[in-house]
Protein backbone atom coordinates (compact mmCIF):
# COMPACT_ATOMS: atom_id res chain seq x y z
CA UNK A 1 0.00 0.00 0.00
CA UNK A 2 1.55 3.32 -0.90
CA UNK A 3 1.96 6.04 1.68
CA UNK A 4 -0.72 8.57 0.67
CA UNK A 5 -3.34 5.80 0.55
CA UNK A 6 -2.24 4.55 3.95
CA UNK A 7 -2.53 7.98 5.48
CA UNK A 8 -5.90 8.66 3.88
CA UNK A 9 -7.27 5.51 5.44
CA UNK A 10 -5.69 6.49 8.73
CA UNK A 11 -7.21 9.95 8.50
CA UNK A 12 -10.66 8.43 8.07
CA UNK A 13 -10.25 5.80 10.77
CA UNK A 14 -11.65 7.82 13.64
CA UNK A 15 -14.49 9.68 11.92
CA UNK A 16 -15.72 10.61 8.45
CA UNK A 17 -14.15 13.61 6.82
CA UNK A 18 -14.38 15.69 3.64
CA UNK A 19 -11.76 16.47 0.98
CA UNK A 20 -9.93 19.33 2.63
CA UNK A 21 -10.25 17.69 6.03
CA UNK A 22 -8.52 14.59 4.70
CA UNK A 23 -5.76 16.67 3.13
CA UNK A 24 -5.09 18.41 6.43
CA UNK A 25 -5.26 15.20 8.45
CA UNK A 26 -2.81 13.40 6.13
CA UNK A 27 -0.32 16.21 6.54
CA UNK A 28 -0.68 16.29 10.33
CA UNK A 29 -0.62 12.53 10.86
CA UNK A 30 2.50 12.08 8.76
CA UNK A 31 4.26 14.89 10.60
CA UNK A 32 4.35 17.03 7.48
CA UNK A 33 6.19 14.39 5.43
CA UNK A 34 3.33 13.36 3.19
CA UNK A 35 1.19 15.99 1.50
CA UNK A 36 -1.51 15.35 -1.06
CA UNK A 37 -2.83 17.95 -3.43
CA UNK A 38 -6.39 17.96 -4.65
CA UNK A 39 -5.96 15.97 -7.86
CA UNK A 40 -3.83 13.27 -6.19
CA UNK A 41 -6.29 13.14 -3.31
CA UNK A 42 -9.27 12.49 -5.53
CA UNK A 43 -7.38 9.98 -7.65
CA UNK A 44 -6.57 8.10 -4.42
CA UNK A 45 -10.13 8.41 -3.14
CA UNK A 46 -11.41 6.98 -6.43
CA UNK A 47 -9.08 4.03 -6.14
CA UNK A 48 -9.88 3.35 -2.51
CA UNK A 49 -13.61 3.55 -3.21
CA UNK A 50 -13.24 1.19 -6.16
CA UNK A 51 -11.50 -1.29 -3.87
CA UNK A 52 -14.32 -0.93 -1.36
CA UNK A 53 -12.15 0.49 1.40
CA UNK A 54 -14.01 3.80 1.74
CA UNK A 55 -17.45 5.02 0.85
CA UNK A 56 -19.47 8.22 0.91
CA UNK A 57 -20.97 9.01 4.26
CA UNK A 58 -23.01 12.13 3.44
CA UNK A 59 -23.05 15.35 1.46
CA UNK A 60 -23.39 18.87 2.82
CA UNK A 61 -23.93 22.07 0.90
CA UNK A 62 -23.03 25.21 2.84
CA UNK A 63 -22.94 28.66 1.23
CA UNK A 64 -23.11 27.01 -2.16
CA UNK A 65 -20.05 24.88 -1.39
CA UNK A 66 -20.60 21.14 -1.75
CA UNK A 67 -18.69 18.94 0.66
CA UNK A 68 -18.76 15.19 0.42
CA UNK A 69 -17.81 13.26 3.55
CA UNK A 70 -16.07 9.91 3.26
CA UNK A 71 -15.83 7.16 5.83
CA UNK A 72 -13.91 3.96 6.24
CA UNK A 73 -15.79 0.76 5.47
CA UNK A 74 -15.36 -2.38 7.55
CA UNK A 75 -13.22 -3.80 4.81
CA UNK A 76 -11.17 -0.63 4.84
CA UNK A 77 -10.69 -0.85 8.59
CA UNK A 78 -9.50 -4.45 8.41
CA UNK A 79 -7.19 -3.67 5.48
CA UNK A 80 -5.66 -0.82 7.45
CA UNK A 81 -5.35 -3.13 10.45
CA UNK A 82 -3.52 -5.72 8.35
CA UNK A 83 -1.19 -3.05 6.99
CA UNK A 84 -0.43 -1.83 10.50
CA UNK A 85 0.48 -5.38 11.53
CA UNK A 86 2.71 -5.74 8.50
CA UNK A 87 4.55 -2.50 9.16
CA UNK A 88 4.88 -3.33 12.85
CA UNK A 89 6.37 -6.68 11.99
CA UNK A 90 8.78 -5.16 9.48
CA UNK A 91 9.81 -2.48 11.97
CA UNK A 92 10.47 -4.93 14.79
CA UNK A 93 12.47 -7.27 12.57
CA UNK A 94 14.67 -4.39 11.42
CA UNK A 95 15.03 -3.03 14.96
CA UNK A 96 16.07 -6.48 16.11
CA UNK A 97 18.78 -6.74 13.48
CA UNK A 98 20.06 -3.27 14.31
CA UNK A 99 20.26 -4.18 18.01
CA UNK A 100 22.38 -7.21 17.13
CA UNK A 101 24.62 -5.13 14.91
CA UNK A 102 25.21 -2.68 17.73
CA UNK A 103 25.86 -5.52 20.15
CA UNK A 104 28.47 -7.01 17.82
CA UNK A 105 30.17 -3.65 17.43
CA UNK A 106 30.26 -3.09 21.17
CA UNK A 107 31.77 -6.54 21.62
CA UNK A 108 34.47 -5.83 19.01
CA UNK A 109 35.32 -2.48 20.55
CA UNK A 110 35.53 -4.07 23.97
CA UNK A 111 37.86 -6.79 22.72
CA UNK A 112 40.51 -4.35 21.54
Amino acid at each position, binding site marked *: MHEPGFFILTALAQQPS*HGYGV*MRAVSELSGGRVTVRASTLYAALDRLAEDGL*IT*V*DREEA*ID*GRLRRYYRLTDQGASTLEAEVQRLRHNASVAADQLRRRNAVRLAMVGAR
Partner: protein
Amino acid sequence: MTGPLARSYRILLLAYPRWYRRERAPEMLTTLLDAAPPGVRRPPVRDVVDLIAGGLRCRLRPPAGVGYRLILAAIALFGALAGLSAAGTWAVPGAPDTDEAVTAAGTAMANEQPHDVAAPTASCGWCPDWRSDAGAPLRRRDFVALAYTPRPADVSVTVQQAGDRLATAGWEVGPVTEDPDAMTVFLTATKDGLALSLTGQTAPVFLDKDLSRPDPAQRPLVLVVTRQATVATAIATVVGLLGGLLAGWLVAAWTLQRFRRHHRALRLAMVATGAPVLLVAVIADLLAANWLLVLTLSGNLSANYLAHAAALLPVAGPPAVAALTTVVALILVTVTIAGQPGPGSELPGPRRGLAPPGRHEA
Protein backbone atom coordinates in the same frame (compact mmCIF):
# COMPACT_ATOMS: atom_id res chain seq x y z
CA MET B 1 -18.24 30.09 -5.28
CA THR B 2 -17.54 33.07 -7.44
CA GLY B 3 -14.48 35.17 -7.77
CA PRO B 4 -11.41 34.97 -9.92
CA LEU B 5 -9.86 32.06 -8.04
CA ALA B 6 -12.95 29.90 -8.43
CA ARG B 7 -13.13 30.84 -12.08
CA SER B 8 -9.52 29.83 -12.65
CA TYR B 9 -10.01 26.53 -10.91
CA ARG B 10 -13.15 25.85 -12.90
CA ILE B 11 -11.18 26.34 -16.11
CA LEU B 12 -8.43 24.04 -14.88
CA LEU B 13 -10.98 21.37 -14.04
CA LEU B 14 -11.89 21.28 -17.74
CA ALA B 15 -8.83 19.07 -18.07
CA TYR B 16 -10.96 16.30 -16.63
CA PRO B 17 -13.46 14.48 -18.85
CA ARG B 18 -17.05 15.60 -18.71
CA TRP B 19 -18.42 12.53 -16.95
CA TYR B 20 -15.83 12.97 -14.21
CA ARG B 21 -16.56 16.67 -13.84
CA ARG B 22 -20.27 15.99 -13.54
CA GLU B 23 -19.58 13.81 -10.50
CA ARG B 24 -16.60 15.50 -8.95
CA ALA B 25 -16.25 19.12 -10.01
CA PRO B 26 -18.32 20.82 -7.28
CA GLU B 27 -16.60 18.82 -4.59
CA MET B 28 -13.10 19.33 -6.01
CA LEU B 29 -13.72 23.03 -6.41
CA THR B 30 -14.72 23.28 -2.76
CA THR B 31 -11.62 21.41 -1.67
CA LEU B 32 -9.37 23.57 -3.84
CA LEU B 33 -10.91 26.76 -2.47
CA ASP B 34 -10.75 25.44 1.10
CA ALA B 35 -7.06 24.70 0.67
CA ALA B 36 -6.21 28.06 -0.89
CA PRO B 37 -4.77 30.66 1.48
CA PRO B 38 -7.09 33.65 1.95
CA GLY B 39 -6.64 36.56 -0.41
CA VAL B 40 -4.99 34.53 -3.14
CA ARG B 41 -6.29 35.46 -6.58
CA ARG B 42 -4.50 32.94 -8.78
CA PRO B 43 -4.00 29.21 -8.35
CA PRO B 44 -0.47 28.19 -7.38
CA VAL B 45 1.63 26.68 -10.14
CA ARG B 46 1.70 23.30 -8.40
CA ASP B 47 -2.07 23.12 -8.53
CA VAL B 48 -2.13 24.10 -12.17
CA VAL B 49 0.31 21.34 -13.09
CA ASP B 50 -1.38 18.81 -10.81
CA LEU B 51 -4.86 19.45 -12.16
CA ILE B 52 -3.83 19.32 -15.79
CA ALA B 53 -1.80 16.16 -15.18
CA GLY B 54 -4.66 14.63 -13.21
CA GLY B 55 -7.15 15.45 -15.95
CA LEU B 56 -4.94 13.93 -18.61
CA ARG B 57 -4.36 10.84 -16.52
CA CYS B 58 -8.10 10.50 -16.08
CA ARG B 59 -8.66 10.74 -19.82
CA LEU B 60 -5.82 8.40 -20.70
CA ARG B 61 -6.34 5.69 -18.12
CA PRO B 62 -8.17 2.55 -19.25
CA PRO B 63 -10.58 0.87 -16.84
CA ALA B 64 -8.89 -1.50 -14.43
CA GLY B 65 -8.22 -4.95 -15.79
CA VAL B 66 -5.70 -6.68 -18.01
CA GLY B 67 -8.15 -7.09 -20.89
CA TYR B 68 -8.86 -3.38 -21.11
CA ARG B 69 -5.17 -2.57 -20.99
CA LEU B 70 -4.38 -4.99 -23.80
CA ILE B 71 -7.09 -3.53 -26.01
CA LEU B 72 -5.77 -0.06 -25.28
CA ALA B 73 -2.24 -1.13 -26.19
CA ALA B 74 -3.39 -2.67 -29.48
CA ILE B 75 -5.35 0.41 -30.51
CA ALA B 76 -2.66 2.85 -29.37
CA LEU B 77 -0.07 0.94 -31.37
CA PHE B 78 -2.37 0.94 -34.39
CA GLY B 79 -2.73 4.70 -34.01
CA ALA B 80 1.04 5.01 -33.95
CA LEU B 81 1.29 2.97 -37.16
CA ALA B 82 -1.41 5.04 -38.83
CA GLY B 83 0.37 8.23 -37.80
CA LEU B 84 3.66 6.85 -39.02
CA SER B 85 2.28 5.91 -42.41
CA ALA B 86 0.44 9.22 -42.79
CA ALA B 87 3.65 11.08 -42.04
CA GLY B 88 5.61 8.83 -44.35
CA THR B 89 3.16 9.30 -47.17
CA TRP B 90 3.31 13.01 -46.77
CA ALA B 91 7.01 13.46 -46.15
CA VAL B 92 8.70 10.73 -48.11
CA PRO B 93 10.78 12.17 -50.95
CA GLY B 94 9.39 9.81 -53.57
CA ALA B 95 11.09 8.23 -56.51
CA PRO B 96 13.90 9.96 -58.35
CA ASP B 97 13.42 11.01 -61.97
CA THR B 98 14.25 8.20 -64.31
CA ASP B 99 16.79 10.46 -66.03
CA GLU B 100 18.53 11.28 -62.77
CA ALA B 101 18.64 7.59 -61.97
CA VAL B 102 19.97 6.59 -65.38
CA THR B 103 22.67 9.27 -65.19
CA ALA B 104 23.73 8.04 -61.77
CA ALA B 105 23.75 4.47 -63.05
CA GLY B 106 25.77 5.50 -66.04
CA THR B 107 28.41 6.98 -63.79
CA ALA B 108 28.66 3.73 -61.91
CA MET B 109 28.56 1.31 -64.77
CA ALA B 110 30.53 3.30 -67.36
CA ASN B 111 29.85 1.88 -70.79
CA GLU B 112 27.56 -0.87 -69.72
CA GLN B 113 24.10 -0.77 -71.12
CA PRO B 114 21.45 -1.93 -68.75
CA HIS B 115 19.43 -4.71 -70.26
CA ASP B 116 16.38 -3.72 -68.28
CA VAL B 117 15.32 -0.44 -66.86
CA ALA B 118 12.35 -1.23 -64.72
CA ALA B 119 9.79 1.55 -64.48
CA PRO B 120 9.53 2.79 -60.90
CA THR B 121 8.25 -0.13 -58.89
CA ALA B 122 6.82 -0.70 -55.47
CA SER B 123 8.45 -2.94 -52.95
CA CYS B 124 6.17 -4.37 -50.36
CA GLY B 125 6.46 -8.07 -49.69
CA TRP B 126 3.26 -8.54 -47.73
CA CYS B 127 0.95 -6.00 -49.34
CA PRO B 128 -1.59 -8.13 -51.14
CA ASP B 129 -2.10 -6.03 -54.26
CA TRP B 130 1.37 -4.77 -54.80
CA ARG B 131 3.36 -6.86 -57.12
CA SER B 132 6.14 -5.81 -59.37
CA ASP B 133 5.17 -8.39 -61.97
CA ALA B 134 4.50 -6.95 -65.37
CA GLY B 135 0.85 -6.14 -65.81
CA ALA B 136 0.00 -5.81 -62.14
CA PRO B 137 -1.23 -2.38 -61.07
CA LEU B 138 1.49 -0.32 -59.45
CA ARG B 139 0.37 2.09 -56.79
CA ARG B 140 3.55 3.55 -55.51
CA ARG B 141 6.77 4.50 -57.11
CA ASP B 142 9.66 4.71 -54.77
CA PHE B 143 12.71 3.72 -56.63
CA VAL B 144 14.15 3.21 -60.06
CA ALA B 145 15.82 -0.13 -60.63
CA LEU B 146 18.19 -1.00 -63.41
CA ALA B 147 19.45 -4.49 -64.16
CA TYR B 148 22.72 -5.34 -65.81
CA THR B 149 24.14 -8.55 -67.16
CA PRO B 150 27.43 -9.03 -65.37
CA ARG B 151 30.41 -10.23 -67.25
CA PRO B 152 31.63 -13.63 -66.18
CA ALA B 153 34.39 -11.95 -64.22
CA ASP B 154 34.31 -11.84 -60.46
CA VAL B 155 31.21 -9.94 -59.41
CA SER B 156 32.97 -8.36 -56.45
CA VAL B 157 35.50 -6.80 -58.81
CA THR B 158 32.72 -5.34 -60.95
CA VAL B 159 31.02 -3.87 -57.91
CA GLN B 160 34.30 -2.47 -56.61
CA GLN B 161 35.05 -0.82 -59.93
CA ALA B 162 31.60 0.76 -59.97
CA GLY B 163 32.31 2.10 -56.51
CA ASP B 164 35.59 3.58 -57.63
CA ARG B 165 33.95 5.30 -60.56
CA LEU B 166 31.28 6.78 -58.32
CA ALA B 167 33.89 7.99 -55.84
CA THR B 168 35.78 9.72 -58.62
CA ALA B 169 32.57 11.46 -59.67
CA GLY B 170 32.12 12.87 -56.19
CA TRP B 171 29.80 10.32 -54.61
CA GLU B 172 30.18 9.30 -51.01
CA VAL B 173 30.77 5.57 -51.34
CA GLY B 174 30.48 2.94 -48.62
CA PRO B 175 32.68 -0.16 -48.51
CA VAL B 176 31.95 -3.16 -50.69
CA THR B 177 30.17 -5.58 -48.40
CA GLU B 178 29.76 -9.28 -48.89
CA ASP B 179 26.80 -11.12 -47.43
CA PRO B 180 27.69 -14.81 -47.43
CA ASP B 181 24.21 -15.95 -46.33
CA ALA B 182 22.38 -14.19 -49.12
CA MET B 183 25.36 -14.78 -51.42
CA THR B 184 25.40 -11.19 -52.53
CA VAL B 185 27.94 -8.46 -52.64
CA PHE B 186 26.77 -4.87 -52.51
CA LEU B 187 27.72 -1.31 -51.99
CA THR B 188 25.81 1.90 -51.33
CA ALA B 189 26.63 5.44 -52.31
CA THR B 190 25.03 8.82 -51.77
CA LYS B 191 25.28 12.21 -53.40
CA ASP B 192 23.05 15.27 -53.57
CA GLY B 193 20.07 13.62 -51.99
CA LEU B 194 20.24 10.50 -54.15
CA ALA B 195 21.04 7.09 -52.70
CA LEU B 196 22.33 4.35 -54.93
CA SER B 197 22.80 0.70 -54.12
CA LEU B 198 24.41 -1.92 -56.33
CA THR B 199 23.90 -5.59 -55.62
CA GLY B 200 25.55 -8.52 -57.34
CA GLN B 201 24.92 -12.20 -56.82
CA THR B 202 27.95 -14.32 -56.10
CA ALA B 203 26.29 -17.69 -56.58
CA PRO B 204 26.23 -18.53 -60.26
CA VAL B 205 23.39 -20.35 -61.93
CA PHE B 206 24.51 -23.06 -64.24
CA LEU B 207 22.96 -24.12 -67.49
CA ASP B 208 21.91 -27.72 -67.81
CA LYS B 209 23.93 -28.68 -64.78
CA ASP B 210 26.98 -28.13 -66.97
CA LEU B 211 29.38 -26.77 -64.45
CA SER B 212 31.48 -25.09 -67.08
CA ARG B 213 28.73 -22.84 -68.40
CA PRO B 214 27.30 -20.48 -65.83
CA ASP B 215 24.51 -18.23 -67.07
CA PRO B 216 25.12 -14.71 -65.83
CA ALA B 217 21.83 -13.45 -67.24
CA GLN B 218 20.02 -15.44 -64.59
CA ARG B 219 21.55 -13.36 -61.82
CA PRO B 220 21.64 -9.78 -62.96
CA LEU B 221 23.48 -7.01 -61.24
CA VAL B 222 20.79 -4.77 -59.80
CA LEU B 223 21.25 -1.07 -59.31
CA VAL B 224 18.61 0.78 -57.33
CA VAL B 225 18.34 4.54 -57.06
CA THR B 226 16.20 6.21 -54.42
CA ARG B 227 15.86 9.67 -53.02
CA GLN B 228 17.38 10.06 -49.61
CA ALA B 229 15.16 10.83 -46.67
CA THR B 230 15.60 14.40 -45.51
CA VAL B 231 15.56 15.85 -42.02
CA ALA B 232 11.95 16.84 -42.68
CA THR B 233 11.15 13.20 -43.30
CA ALA B 234 12.74 12.13 -40.05
CA ILE B 235 10.95 14.82 -38.04
CA ALA B 236 7.62 14.13 -39.72
CA THR B 237 8.06 10.42 -39.02
CA VAL B 238 8.67 10.97 -35.32
CA VAL B 239 5.84 13.49 -35.01
CA GLY B 240 3.48 11.18 -36.87
CA LEU B 241 4.45 8.22 -34.72
CA LEU B 242 4.01 10.03 -31.39
CA GLY B 243 0.93 11.96 -32.47
CA GLY B 244 -0.71 8.81 -33.74
CA LEU B 245 0.17 6.97 -30.53
CA LEU B 246 -1.41 9.70 -28.39
CA ALA B 247 -4.50 9.94 -30.59
CA GLY B 248 -4.98 6.17 -30.60
CA TRP B 249 -4.50 6.05 -26.83
CA LEU B 250 -7.04 8.84 -26.20
CA VAL B 251 -9.64 7.31 -28.50
CA ALA B 252 -9.20 3.86 -27.00
CA ALA B 253 -9.33 5.14 -23.40
CA TRP B 254 -12.42 7.23 -24.13
CA THR B 255 -14.17 4.32 -25.82
CA LEU B 256 -13.29 1.84 -23.07
CA GLN B 257 -14.39 4.25 -20.34
CA ARG B 258 -17.68 4.72 -22.14
CA PHE B 259 -18.02 0.96 -22.50
CA ARG B 260 -17.53 0.56 -18.80
CA ARG B 261 -20.32 3.02 -18.03
CA HIS B 262 -22.91 1.76 -20.50
CA HIS B 263 -25.46 -0.82 -19.55
CA ARG B 264 -25.59 -4.27 -21.03
CA ALA B 265 -27.46 -3.69 -24.28
CA LEU B 266 -25.15 -0.93 -25.40
CA ARG B 267 -22.13 -2.90 -24.29
CA LEU B 268 -23.17 -5.73 -26.60
CA ALA B 269 -23.61 -3.28 -29.46
CA MET B 270 -20.16 -1.87 -28.77
CA VAL B 271 -18.61 -5.31 -28.78
CA ALA B 272 -20.31 -6.14 -32.08
CA THR B 273 -19.06 -2.99 -33.78
CA GLY B 274 -15.73 -2.84 -32.01
CA ALA B 275 -14.56 -6.39 -32.60
CA PRO B 276 -13.80 -5.95 -36.33
CA VAL B 277 -11.89 -2.74 -35.60
CA LEU B 278 -9.87 -4.50 -32.95
CA LEU B 279 -9.19 -7.36 -35.34
CA VAL B 280 -7.90 -5.04 -38.06
CA ALA B 281 -5.77 -3.21 -35.48
CA VAL B 282 -4.24 -6.39 -34.07
CA ILE B 283 -3.46 -7.77 -37.54
CA ALA B 284 -1.82 -4.49 -38.54
CA ASP B 285 0.18 -4.52 -35.30
CA LEU B 286 1.40 -8.06 -35.90
CA LEU B 287 2.34 -7.33 -39.51
CA ALA B 288 4.23 -4.25 -38.40
CA ALA B 289 6.03 -6.19 -35.69
CA ASN B 290 7.00 -8.84 -38.23
CA TRP B 291 8.22 -6.22 -40.66
CA LEU B 292 10.26 -4.51 -37.95
CA LEU B 293 11.78 -7.83 -37.01
CA VAL B 294 12.74 -8.52 -40.60
CA LEU B 295 14.26 -5.07 -40.93
CA THR B 296 16.26 -5.45 -37.74
CA LEU B 297 17.54 -8.90 -38.62
CA SER B 298 18.54 -7.87 -42.10
CA GLY B 299 20.37 -4.89 -40.72
CA ASN B 300 18.47 -2.59 -43.01
CA LEU B 301 17.44 -0.01 -40.46
CA SER B 302 18.50 3.09 -42.34
CA ALA B 303 16.28 6.15 -42.08
CA ASN B 304 15.73 6.07 -45.80
CA TYR B 305 14.51 2.53 -45.76
CA LEU B 306 12.25 3.15 -42.80
CA ALA B 307 10.71 6.23 -44.33
CA HIS B 308 9.95 4.46 -47.58
CA ALA B 309 8.59 1.41 -45.82
CA ALA B 310 6.45 3.52 -43.52
CA ALA B 311 4.86 5.19 -46.50
CA LEU B 312 3.92 1.79 -47.84
CA LEU B 313 2.10 0.78 -44.67
CA PRO B 314 -1.45 1.82 -45.47
CA VAL B 315 -3.13 -1.26 -46.80
CA ALA B 316 -5.63 0.44 -49.03
CA GLY B 317 -8.67 -1.32 -50.29
CA PRO B 318 -11.45 -3.37 -48.80
CA PRO B 319 -9.99 -4.03 -45.34
CA ALA B 320 -9.45 -0.34 -44.68
CA VAL B 321 -12.92 0.59 -45.88
CA ALA B 322 -14.43 -2.08 -43.70
CA ALA B 323 -12.47 -0.90 -40.69
CA LEU B 324 -13.48 2.70 -41.29
CA THR B 325 -17.16 1.79 -41.50
CA THR B 326 -17.05 -0.08 -38.25
CA VAL B 327 -15.18 2.77 -36.59
CA VAL B 328 -17.99 5.13 -37.57
CA ALA B 329 -20.60 2.69 -36.29
CA LEU B 330 -18.65 2.30 -33.06
CA ILE B 331 -18.50 6.02 -32.52
CA LEU B 332 -22.25 6.30 -33.06
CA VAL B 333 -22.89 3.64 -30.50
CA THR B 334 -20.51 5.00 -27.89
CA VAL B 335 -22.02 8.47 -27.95
CA THR B 336 -25.63 7.31 -28.20
CA ILE B 337 -26.47 7.91 -24.59
CA ALA B 338 -24.38 10.93 -23.75
CA GLY B 339 -22.59 10.19 -20.52
CA GLN B 340 -25.27 8.74 -18.30
CA PRO B 341 -23.33 6.63 -15.88
CA GLY B 342 -24.68 3.12 -15.60
CA PRO B 343 -24.20 0.61 -12.80
CA GLY B 344 -20.57 0.26 -13.80
CA SER B 345 -19.72 3.70 -12.46
CA GLU B 346 -16.67 3.48 -10.31
CA LEU B 347 -17.07 6.70 -8.36
CA PRO B 348 -18.27 6.60 -4.78
CA GLY B 349 -21.65 8.17 -4.64
CA PRO B 350 -25.28 7.79 -3.77
CA ARG B 351 -25.74 5.30 -6.58
CA ARG B 352 -23.48 2.81 -4.90
CA GLY B 353 -26.27 1.31 -2.89
CA LEU B 354 -25.84 3.45 0.20
CA ALA B 355 -28.77 4.75 2.19
CA PRO B 356 -29.55 7.94 0.29
CA PRO B 357 -27.66 10.74 2.00
CA GLY B 358 -29.59 13.78 3.01
CA ARG B 359 -28.45 17.08 1.64
CA HIS B 360 -28.28 19.39 4.58
CA GLU B 361 -28.60 23.01 3.83
CA ALA B 362 -26.96 24.82 6.68
